[in-house]
């Protein structure tokens, strides 16, 4: 089997195991989100490091995505404003607090903390702060990876805790990312290629959204979903949402 096939097979297997093993937790997360939406609360999404940022992008202003999503696009912990810089800043204790304060993360809201590695300071602080501020905290992370990183690793939060084990997390959904992310071993190359984290996390987020939509419809409520601006009638359908949320969602 060549690398191409192996990657495909592995991704399919991992999506399958998420569907089997995480379904119940995705359902619980969807309950939490649906309840918050009924109370007109915001769903904050924070991808706490490097490419984790994409989780917030995936959920935000997306055709077929939930409207009341507040992406926490913290430029210091994304690759967009200096990749090397983001690796340093994600390791600073005390960074997450001002960020959550700034985005008005508060009582009754939902905070989704997405970070496959689940060990850096901003990740751990974000979950702890979120809980302190009265949020329901949903974590998306890989227990396999976190458990394989020794307590002394410099990327770790001073408490050495893992996101998936925090008591502050109400629901933790395992993204089944294997240790090191990349899955394809090639002859002659020490480092594997083909990372899977983005695909796996995006899958989980979208399954949450789908489940939320189904739950709300079953209760006779039409969920707030963005239409595509790029199809006929899309912009018109979105107009009311933009009016309602433009001042509430910083990055809208």
């Amino acid at each position, binding site marked *: 089997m060549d690398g191409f096939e192996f990657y495909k097979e592995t991704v399919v297997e991992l999506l399958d195991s998420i569907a089997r093993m995480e379904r119940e937790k995705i359902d619980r997360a969807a309950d939490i989100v649906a309840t918050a939406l009924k109370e007109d609360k915001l769903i904050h999404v924070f991808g706490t490091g490097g490419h984790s940022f994409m989780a917030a992008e995936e959920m935000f202003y997306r055709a077929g995505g939930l409207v009341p999503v507040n992406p926490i696009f913290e*430029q*210091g912990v994304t690759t967009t*404003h*200096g990749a*090397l*810089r983001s690796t*340093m*800043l994600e*390791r*600073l*204790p*005390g*960074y997450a*607090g*001002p*960020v959550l*304060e*700034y985005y008005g993360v508060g009582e009754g809201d939902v905070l989704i903390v997405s970070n496959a590695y689940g060990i850096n300071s901003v990740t751990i602080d974000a979950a702890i702060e979120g809980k302190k501020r009265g949020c329901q905290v949903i974590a998306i992370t890989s227990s396999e990876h976190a458990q394989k990183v020794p307590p002394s690793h410099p990327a770790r939060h001073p408490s050495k805790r893992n996101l998936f084990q925090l008591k502050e997390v109400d629901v933790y959904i395992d993204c089944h990312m294997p240790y090191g992310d990349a899955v394809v071993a090639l002859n002659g190359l020490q480092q594997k290629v083909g990372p899977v984290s983005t695909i796996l996390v995006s899958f989980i987020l979208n399954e949450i959204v789908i489940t939320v939509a189904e739950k709300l419809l079953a209760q006779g409520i039409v969920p707030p979903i963005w239409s595509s601006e790029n199809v006929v009638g899309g912009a018109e359908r979105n107009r009311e949402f933009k009016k309602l949320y433009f001042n509430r969602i*910083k990055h809208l």
Partner: protein
Amino acid sequence: MNEVNPATAFLETVQSALTKVISSEVKNLEAAADVIADCILEEDKGRVFHVWGPGGHSSIIAEEALYRKGGLACVNPILDPGISLSHGALKEINGLERVEGYARAVLDYHQVKTGDVLLLGSAYGVNVVTIEAALEAKQRGVTVIAITSPEFSRSVDRNHPGRHKSKKNLYEVADITINSFVPPGDAVVKIPGLDQKVSPIGTIMQCAVFQALVALVVDKLVKRGVKPPIWTNALEIGGVEANRKYIKKYYGKFKSL
């Protein structure tokens, strides 16, 4: 009754602050310009001249230094998106500029190293990021030049929660300090009927001192037989082409470019 026009009051206050700079800061400007010129002359040996204003509005000084007509191209303006107004003023001023370790990460990212010169612009001269930057830079063997207002720094209580844990002021850490004479409180115009003063002079003074310094640096370089790279206005005919050779040299080297 003699009514003072608030607009003239502001402008006259700026004038008098500039006069103070002219009367007392020339020797500090000369000393700073010598150090910077030395650094620029050894650019081929890897020495870099960095400019950073670690704070919300303080960051404006590095924008002045960045790709501006009549400005030096051989400068690394450090514009950190987090320590600036551009990605959430409230977030920066109320929080991020107090996070320990942040300054160190920025200096690492911009590769501020032994032998370099770091110009720090901070009128207030007290926040965590500023003091950490100065201390960390000195520890690395970097010459630290400050454009700051010692009078302002002294007006901030030593135990203010926004201070660096060392409780030091920027002018106490820097190798050379140029006084920008920003008065305590920054805002200078008293409007009858209002308790709080309005219209701060910080940016004007910090940037005025900076541009004065640049003029002196360039003069010294020319007197030493070297024509330093100066940006041409991109809007002028031939401007973009004139800049092209500098862009080629510095685009990858200086992250903000």
